[in-house]
């Protein structure tokens, strides 16, 4: 589904990614673990199409297509979904307006009929129920005044509505207490399936106890240093990133 080959990228003149190779098949869950500044967030932003990053070498192919050539909205329509580390607050735009606009934009691009207000509301309420959320958050302005957990759940709700094929979870655990983490992880797990792939980006092993990956990769200094199974995450939890030459204050 996703093939990243020798990806190099910079922000301004500063190289961040220095040759990433990664291949993800449908149905797989991959985790990328790495210390602060290793390039984890840069990778997720490049995959989602954020401006301000320059790919200097390498390629990213998604379902046989050059992903890097597409603007962010086309990537979303093609099934790429980034769950944000810090979901953005948008005052003055109600969550339901935002979700309906996004869903219809994606449906339009996919050649599907747009939903009217009633159809949308019905679908949104169903998804909320499935994810164990109240539909009260549909009425509020996008993420404004939401707790950390509510913001992440709102992102998962967007994911459930937009029905992506490749989901990138960027530090989804940051700012969540253990209960919120469990709820978000349950939401993510309910969306796992043989036709979907996930890339879970995290600093800590904690999240991976709830969203159990098939493959774990260690990212440091802009390169994947080591790959393995889910046991690699536990090893990192016990020993830290020191063996990769990273010196993190505890």
């Amino acid at each position, binding site marked *: 589904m996703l093939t990243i080959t020798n990806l190099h990228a910079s922000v301004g003149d500063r190289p961040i990614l220095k040759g990433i190779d990664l291949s993800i098949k449908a149905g797989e869950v991959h985790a990328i673990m790495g210390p602060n500044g290793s390039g984890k967030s840069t990778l997720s932003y490049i995959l989602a199409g954020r401006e301000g990053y320059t790919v200097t070498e390498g390629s990213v192919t998604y379902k046989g297509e050059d992903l890097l050539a597409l603007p962010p909205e086309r990537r979303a329509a093609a099934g790429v979904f980034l769950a944000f580390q810090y979901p*953005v607050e948008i005052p003055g*735009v109600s969550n339901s307006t935002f979700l309906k606009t996004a869903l219809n*934009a994606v449906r339009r691009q996919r050649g599907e009929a747009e939903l009217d207000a009633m159809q949308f509301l019905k679908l949104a309420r169903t998804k909320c129920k499935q994810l164990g959320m109240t539909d009260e958050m549909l009425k509020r302005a996008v993420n404004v005044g939401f707790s950390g957990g509510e913001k992440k759940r709102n992102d998962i709700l967007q994911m459930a509505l937009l029905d992506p094929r490749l989901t990138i979870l960027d530090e989804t655990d940051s700012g969540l207490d253990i209960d919120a983490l469990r709820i978000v992880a349950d939401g993510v797990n309910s969306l796992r399936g043989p036709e979907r792939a996930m890339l879970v980006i995290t600093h800590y092993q904690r999240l991976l106890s709830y969203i159990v990956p098939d493959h774990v990769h260690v990212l440091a200094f802009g390169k994947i240093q080591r790959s393995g199974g889910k046991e690699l995450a536990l090893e990192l939890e016990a020993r830290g990133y020191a063996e990769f030459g990273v010196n993190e204050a505890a």
Partner: protein
Amino acid sequence: MTWLNTLRSAGRARFAELGFPKVRQEDWRFTNLGALERTLFLPASPASALVAVDALPSVTPSHRLVFVNGGFRADLSAASERPDGVIIGSLAAVMASHPALVEAHLGQRADDAGHGPLALNTAHLADGAVLYVPKGVYLDKPVELVMIGAGGHEPLSWHPRLLVVLEERAGATLIEHHFSLGDGAATFSNGVSEITLGTGARLRHYKAQRENAAAFHLSTLSGRLEHDACYEGFLLTLGARLSRNEVRLVLAGPGAEAKLSGAYLLRGEQLGDTTTVIDHASPRCTSQQLFKGVIDDKAQGVFQGKVLVRPNAQKTDARQLSRALLLSDDARIDAKPELEIHADDVKCSHGATAGDLDEDAMFYLRARGIDRDGARALLIGAYVNEAIAEISSEPVREAFEALADHWLRS
């Protein structure tokens, strides 16, 4: 009427002395009237063209007064006699039917501003609108003024005068809707409004201006608020090549309250000027101002807001905020907030910000499938609606949101 002729001659003499304001005058330094001054305007004759009245869709007015090129059109208006002493009509008609009332109030408020365009309006004083609400009467449905510009082959000008008098504890909602019919030669609408609010009177006054790209639109409003009177004003500016809304309110009685807000959406080479002067002349008065601008292309926004707190105006609460969204590198905002405080026990705040669209929010929306234009429209709409939310009348709020939304999509 001799008093009217006297007023007009005084206006002519005053305009001969002052002329049009120049950019070297502090109050006009950002707004250059050169192009206006160089255009030779003919006074518009009462237009007889048949026009369709494009009223605000969700507003049902109790009375509607329609003017074409400044001339009252009884055939398009709906104003019925009222038994409760309320007077709604064209200035010319009310001058004939209630001369003493008009004489008592006309020219009383508008002297203080004293600039050229105001004097020019007085020199041409002939028609306009009157809203008079007697003591204790509350008009629940709005009164709508529809001011239509129908440009011809030659530049035309008109100088409407609006007179609003709300007696003690009276209440009313007044909507002004200014727009052009098609294109044509330049037009110059030079309106003056005089507003008197008696003790405890409440006026809601909403104005939408969407004249065409050949229009010059100047408007000078002077208001006086007595004890506990309340003025809620909103200015929506979408049109005209050059426009200026100048609002001067004197909070003359204790406890008077002014809520003045607006949104200006400018593109192309438009200039939109909002100038406000709130004069806190009495204790315990409050003023709240929020103005938001969206400026694209080479357009220019101007916001000058002065708050004056006189020595006896203790316990004043005055807030003012000007925000502008600049959508292009050539877009420009000149903001000049000004506080002049002569009392010591007051709460005053002001702020002016300018910026562009939040990049994080843009990316968030695009990452959810909404294209760049759609994301921009959503964010700008939300930004503007935050100002429009200040309008307390729900149908007017919805109508103004629809006008702003239409601008964003065109």
